[in-house]
């Protein structure tokens, strides 16, 4: 005769203990699953798919820019001061980065495809710096792309002399498509350069 049949109480306690162990393991695994599996995926707005055309007429996608930190400015060439100033400031930043400049892609997206053709954009951005990439696309392509990146633009006026309202800040993007920060035209050139240096040294 075994001990357990002799002592039914002891057997019950042993079963209870095992049941408790199973319960604890179940609770712990559930808690882990809650934390690990249900936590929100890292937001990578700049890894969302898009398709646009660059200044040489080549089709580019989000993959073209992932892998290198980048700085994005959205504007149009019929813009007398805000856009050329932003481009001149980015050209200056590239100059000051020296040999580190190849670790940053500067992109100018024209939200005015009606007037800004890739051929026009080519000469326009090269005037500031040949390393700046200029993109544009169809109205639908631009709408989808800017929406995913929290960029606003709107056509104001009609006929030949309309204006584009647009997000003025420059968006800094990590190599994997995560948002890093913005450059603001009210900041000094030094502050902007520090932010860029922090981005490319990540």
């Amino acid at each position: 005769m075994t001990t357990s049949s002799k002592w039914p109480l002891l057997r019950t306690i042993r079963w209870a203990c095992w049941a408790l162990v199973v319960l604890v393991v179940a609770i712990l695994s559930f808690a882990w699953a809650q934390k690990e599996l249900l936590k929100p995926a890292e937001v990578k707005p700049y890894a969302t798919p898009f398709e646009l055309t660059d200044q040489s007429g080549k089709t580019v996608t989000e993959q073209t820019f992932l892998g290198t930190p980048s700085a994005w400015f959205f504007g149009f060439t019929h813009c007398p001061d805000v856009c050329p100033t932003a481009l001149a400031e980015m050209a200056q930043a590239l100059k000051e980065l020296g040999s580190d400049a190849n670790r940053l892609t500067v992109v100018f997206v024209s939200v005015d495809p009606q007037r800004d053709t890739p051929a026009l954009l080519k000469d326009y951005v090269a005037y500031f710096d040949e390393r700046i990439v200029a993109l544009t696309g169809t109205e639908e392509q631009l709408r989808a792309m800017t929406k995913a990146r929290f960029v606003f633009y709107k056509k104001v006026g009609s006929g030949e002399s309309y204006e584009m309202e647009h997000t003025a800040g420059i968006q800094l993007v990590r190599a994997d498509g995560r948002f890093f920060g913005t450059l603001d035209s009210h900041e000094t050139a030094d502050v902007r350069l520090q932010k860029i240096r922090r981005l490319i040294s990540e």
Partner: protein
Amino acid sequence: MATEQATRINYRIGGMDGASCVSRIVNALTRNLIASLLFLLPVTALAHEFKAESLLIDHPKVIETPPGAKVAAGYLTVVNQGQADDRLVAIESAGIPRIEMHASKIIDGIASMKPMEGGLPLPAGKTVGLGEDGTHAMFMDLTKQLKEGEKIEAVLVFEKAGRVPVVFNVEKRSAQKNERHDHQQ
């Protein structure tokens, strides 16, 4: 003997003899003089102003355009030295299809631009500039690139002072944004 030695030591400051010491000082002075003259040169070269009755118009300029650009931004300063208010109502130029006065603003991170209704007010005794708070003369429908060094003849039309001929100098965009005075948020 002691004095002579002291003098010789003095002359040998930095391990050079008297003559090279003096020539160094002269060299340094010349260099400084040239440097300061060079520094002054652009300032004197750029100073250009126009007068009309009690208005002093200082340094009208347009920023060089990138190729393909159809618009350029012009800036100027007007000092109203008189007792009466005036107003800049229009800018005209035979060489530019259209010139309007606009104000760019960045509000809540969005850049927008509006024509300045009624032009630029010039209160008596005040200095006002196109260039402050995002204001500018917008040269529009350009048919060719505007390049540094070019001059654009234009006429400023004032409410009281009438038509005043001026010349806008085309200048390179400066790395510091002195042409675009900061706008408010």
